[in-house]
């Protein structure tokens, strides 16, 4: 808890220092070609002549009220924009983890149980590939392949949205997003009972999720593998067999249970990391999340936008760190004493 507070405070201080040291608050809102007097007057208005401590206090209290400044381009408060775009990023990251749970974790378990097996080699190959390949480039390759490589995928649920153009953005052009409930389009479409729309939004999620999963999954694979292989070779697993417990029971009751804390830990950290770490993939797939938003801010020298995103991403990361601790605590009786 203390660590959480320290990290958050430090993050905020860095953010503060960056905004002040660059002089952005003034120029950002006025442009450069203004007279001294106006600058002076604005500085007074914005409280820039106050002592630095007072400024910092103001900054923090504003932050605590959710005020991250106003975008100089759109004139919309940064916090509002982020609230609008965060669900897009969150949905992408959720699906990324879902895809990783489909390949990285089962392969990791298998590789931990049978280190010399074919699946272990496949997993290590995929991990090696995933760490070597830049996600944004892989995303581009996928787009290219979808464009130019027939045959098209089958259509399980009615006519599939055309593969031409490939699925960029959260929905195709001309498709109305579902009514906002959670902000996650797939979920909202299901809530609205529109299965075609749900399928459509899911289709748009697949490419970014697969791309991010291939590149962020390797650590999950490797940690799962080593956690499982450590668990299987522990004495209590042999003991469990000796009591006449079956393979399945031992696998679930002892091996997977003991291997899961580090894996869950890393999964949560990966989630937190990808909230801000998926920037490039968002850009490649025109995904309107906070990453694209930050890049947009950067392109327009709209630094409050950039810093807002950076702060939010760091805060989410730190909060997840804390949640992970809680999960570990719940799972491992040794930590409870």
């Amino acid at each position, binding site marked *: 808890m203390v660590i959480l507070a320290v990290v958050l405070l430090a993050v905020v201080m860095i953010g503060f220092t960056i905004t002040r*040291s660059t002089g*952005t608050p003034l120029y950002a809102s006025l442009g450069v070609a203004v007279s001294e007097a106006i600058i002076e007057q604005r500085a007074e208005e914005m409280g820039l002549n106050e002592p630095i401590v007072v400024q910092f206090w103001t900054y923090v209290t504003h932050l605590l009220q959710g005020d991250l400044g106003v975008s100089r381009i759109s004139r919309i408060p940064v916090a509002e924009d982020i609230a609008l775009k965060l669900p897009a990023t969150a949905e992408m990251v959720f699906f990324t983890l879902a895809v990783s749970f489909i390949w990285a974790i089962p392969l990791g378990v298998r590789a931990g149980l049978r280190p010399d097996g074919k699946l272990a080699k496949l997993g290590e190959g995929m991990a090696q590939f995933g760490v070597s*390949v*830049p996600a944004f480039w892989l995303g581009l390759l996928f787009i290219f392949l979808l464009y130019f490589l027939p045959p098209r995928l089958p259509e399980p649920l009615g006519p599939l949205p055309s593969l031409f153009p490939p699925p960029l953005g959260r929905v195709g052009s001309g498709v109305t997003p579902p009514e906002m409930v959670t902000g996650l389009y797939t979920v909202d479409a299901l809530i609205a009972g529109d299965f075609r729309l749900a399928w459509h939004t899911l289709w748009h999620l697949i490419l970014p999720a697969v791309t991010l999963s291939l590149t962020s999954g*390797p*650590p999950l694979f490797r940690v799962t593998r080593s956690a499982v292989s450590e668990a299987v070779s522990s004495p209590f697993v042999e003991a469990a067999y000796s009591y006449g417990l079956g393979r399945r029971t031992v696998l679930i009751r002892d091996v997977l249970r003991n291997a899961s804390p580090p894996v869950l830990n890393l999964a949560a950290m990966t989630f937190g990391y990808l909230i*801000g770490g998926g920037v490039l993939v968002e850009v490649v797939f025109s995904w309107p999340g906070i990453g694209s938003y930050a890049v947009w801010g950067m392109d327009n020298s709209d630094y409050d936008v950039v810093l807002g995103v950076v702060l939010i991403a760091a805060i989410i990361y730190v909060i997840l760190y804390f949640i992970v601790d809680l999960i570990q605590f719940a799972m491992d009786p040794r930590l409870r004493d």
Partner: protein
Amino acid sequence: MTVLSPQRERGRMARVFVGPTVGMTIRRALFFFMLFLAVVAPWLDDFSAWLPFPIYDPLRPDPFNPVSPPTAEHWFGTDTLGLDVFTRVLMATRVDFTLALIGVALGGGLGCLAGAWAAYRRGWVDMVALRIVEVLQSFPVLLLGLAMFAAFGSLEIFGPVDHGMAVLVLSISMVNFPLYLRQVRSVLLPLTEAEFVQAAKCAGLGAWGIVWHHFIPNARGQILALFPLTCAYAIQIIAGLSFIGLGIEPPNPEWGSMIKAGATLIVQGHWWVSVFPGAFIVLSVYSLTGFSARSETLVGPGGTSA
């Protein structure tokens, strides 16, 4: 002090080239080949007569031959300006390798010193160091880079040094600083109580003397193991930031900005402008990991999702 015999020197050199497995040796050879290309890239033009591949000026457009697919004249094709992708990919190797190296060396070097210092002093120094590490590592890497560019955006403080490159290098340093700090600290922490350190203290060797003469050599193995991996990681970050237009300005050759230049072409089927620079990133990262015996990815969750 024993003097190393030439025999042993040669043994050490060989160990750099020859890995524990055939696969790793091949990867290392690939790396040295790329390194060689990076070093000689600027002079290739002078020897074009002897080269099996045609080489061009990486910055001179050819308006009569834009977006040419790979041909015998242009092995990797040309981009919208008619620039030869092959030449530019080779030149970019030089840029990416150099920036990665400087960034890692700077951040890593400072990280090593800080880690050793934290391990030596322990107590509150160690506390502060760890908090700094935690703070730095709670930023997703690319966002940290973005924040750096935001922070230095309007400052012209690097004098003659290219602004974008300087901020790139700083960003890489910021990422590597905590990695090395952590690693070195964890290796050295158990050593602070070791006899030889106590002996050195008694002998009146100062704190920095101990750090320099006893700590750094002891952590050398770990540092060397980390180095190629962090360089590979740095290459991905540099390319990633350039991909969103930060750092290296076009038309200067750099893999990430070349991929960006090709991104709009790829949907028209002109794949070569993006694919070749990306393939070189993959090759360089893959070849660099051939130096690390550990197959672990060092860099936290989502390590390389740059």
